[in-house]
């Protein structure tokens, strides 16, 4: 991706220049998180479902090669063409070859984080092929030559006036008309022509079922279906980890996915593709792009259980206040911070540090990924491999030294409270300690928790 190569804290600083917008972003995502909570509380067996979700994924990863082979066999007998891509480059080449062989010029694409990860759009555009992102949020960011800032809510970093301006210049909507209904209708009208005349549709895959050789795509807008059923060729792109063993497992995952994502009980459309329609070509591209490497890392392989619901983004205090673009990757947020160092360690070494390790992500994750533990483990691994800046390295070393010796920890705590009380400006100096950008210092407690505890425990 042609993302800015700068690091998370520098990019967050840019996002934080507009304080009001940051507040809005923060509150809106928290609102989505609270909708998730309400939906979850309506399902008494929620924790049981999470446990099943987690166990099914653990089982699948432990037998992944067999399930992929089973899927391939069944899908082929259903009339679907199966392709395998080792990396992003091969993924893009396979798609481009299908496009060339069929002399296609116009492509519609519904949401697929994998094609973002592979930067498919730039690749195809450079070959003179028109690719339109049909999900409204993705379409907005595509027109603005930006990338999605959230895997479920791609344009969450934008306000309605931004969308209005963008549509005014590209779709000639009325200047200053910021009404979401009006703007969405303009996109609907424009896109409808694109759907009707498109020759080839690309979609993502939410779940691929080994047992039946089919795949499921979930949308609220209906854009994946409009594309796939109108075009003569349908290409669905999936990472190897999208496989689930059986059709009945969809019951578990579809119940978990949208409640976790937006608080809806299910998406408006959950489309199950098993065979091409009469006269249609259907292709599935199965992509590795570093996933088998991650599978071989015992500390991080759990990240491959992710069903891309976005709940960990919405709950993350760092994501909410730094914005998706600060993660300079296709998948932002806490899970992105675990996946991206696997794809490129050097460039993404900053991401596992973009977290307070508060653990909220792990608490909401519908498939029980130990997200915050993995972030902590990446910090250790990256530091050992020398991918971490000297300032951070020193801080981490000091911290691990201090916390491993209780007596030093106590002295350090006492000293810290004393310094906070008498020289607060030193700690809160925004150049020495960048944590205090946009933050105020709390009043330090008179006594440590430990002192308080011993005094009160009797």
């Amino acid at each position, binding site marked *: 991706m042609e993302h800015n190569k700068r690091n998370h804290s520098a990019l967050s600083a840019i996002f934080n220049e507009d304080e009001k917008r940051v507040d809005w972003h923060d509150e*809106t995502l928290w609102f*989505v998180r609270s909708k998730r909570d309400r939906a979850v509380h309506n399902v008494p067996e929620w924790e049981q479902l999470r446990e099943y979700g987690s166990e099914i994924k653990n089982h699948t990863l432990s037998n992944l090669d067999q399930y*992929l082979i089973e899927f391939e066999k069944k899908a082929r007998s259903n009339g679907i063409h199966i392709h395998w891509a080792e990396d992003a480059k091969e993924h893009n080449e396979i798609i481009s070859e299908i496009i060339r062989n069929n002399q296609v010029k116009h492509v519609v694409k519904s949401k697929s984080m994998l094609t973002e990860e592979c930067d498919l759009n730039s690749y195809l555009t450079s070959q003179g092929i028109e690719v339109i992102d049909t999900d409204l949020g993705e379409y907005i960011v595509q027109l603005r030559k930006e990338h999605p800032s959230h895997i479920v809510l791609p344009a969450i970093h934008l306000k309605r006036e931004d969308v209005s301006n963008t549509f005014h210049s590209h779709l000639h909507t009325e200047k200053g008309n910021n009404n979401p209904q009006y703007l*969405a209708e303009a996109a609907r009208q424009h896109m409808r022509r694109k759907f009707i005349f498109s020759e080839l549709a690309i979609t993502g895959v939410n779940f691929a079922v080994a047992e039946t*050789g089919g795949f499921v795509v979930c949308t609220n807008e*209906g854009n994946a279906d409009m594309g796939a059923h109108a075009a003569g060729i349908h290409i669905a792109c999936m990472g190897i980890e999208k496989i689930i*063993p059986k059709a009945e497992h969809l019951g578990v995952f579809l119940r978990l996915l949208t409640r976790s994502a937006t608080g809806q009980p299910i998406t408006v459309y959950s489309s199950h593709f098993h065979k091409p329609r009469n006269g249609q070509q259907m292709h599935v591209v199965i992509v590795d792009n570093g996933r088998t490497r991650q599978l071989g890392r015992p500390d991080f392989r759990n990240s491959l259980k992710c069903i891309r619901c976005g709940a960990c983004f919405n709950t993350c205090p760092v994501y909410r206040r730094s914005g998706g673009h600060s993660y300079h990757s296709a998948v932002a947020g806490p899970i992105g911070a675990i996946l991206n160092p696997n794809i490129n360690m050097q460039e993404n070494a900053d991401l596992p540090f973009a977290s307070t390790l508060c653990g909220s992500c792990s608490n909401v994750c519908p498939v029980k990924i130990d997200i915050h533990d993995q972030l902590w483990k990446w910090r250790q691994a990256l530091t050992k491999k020398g991918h971490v800046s000297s300032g951070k390295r020193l801080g981490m070393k000091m911290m691990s030294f201090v916390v491993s010796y209780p007596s030093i920890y106590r002295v350090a705590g006492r000293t810290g409270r004393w310094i906070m009380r008498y020289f607060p400006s030193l700690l809160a100096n925004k150049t020495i300690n960048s944590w205090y950008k946009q933050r105020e210092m709390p009043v330090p407690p008179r006594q440590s928790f430990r002192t308080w505890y011993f005094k009160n425990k009797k």
Partner: protein
Amino acid sequence: MNSREKILAAIAINKPAFQPMPDVVVDIKYDYSVLVPQFLNILQINGATAVWVENVQTIKDDLQKNIAGGHYTINTTEVLGIVNEEININSNPAFLDPVEIAYISGTLGIAENGAIWLEESKMRNRLLPFICQHLVIVLDVTKIVADMHEAYKRITLGNEGYGVFVAGPSKTADIEQSLVVGAHGARSLKVYLLS
């Protein structure tokens, strides 16, 4: 080695020790006597209109009223009378584009989330439920199940080339999280539950 072999070989080396597949048995905590009201209620929350009718004539009248009102209306369900056979598996998108209202029969409905299963054989053309401006689904009231687990027990995936759960009108909240009904699919969904 080609990519397929390379990927499969890498998985074989890197995958964790075998873990058993869980037997999914979810305790159903639903009260079956309230499934239908629950189903109707959740559909309304999802932005659909849902009505329970005693007699198929009510739906037929509604269909006739739409046709008489000059709306391009397509019926694909035999219980409502003559099926519009000009719409079929080979109809192209430009031909389907002007359809205003489409009547399609559902196979089953789910009380926990309002989703209704539509099968390819019942919709005549896969694009129809999406490209029509307004979708009307007719569903037998005895076909309501409690939850997704029950639903998948009754559906045999792969028998048909395509099937979809529809749980409301198409919608988006991609502009500042404000809900807009009528994104790319049908602008409205009306569900007739038939006794």
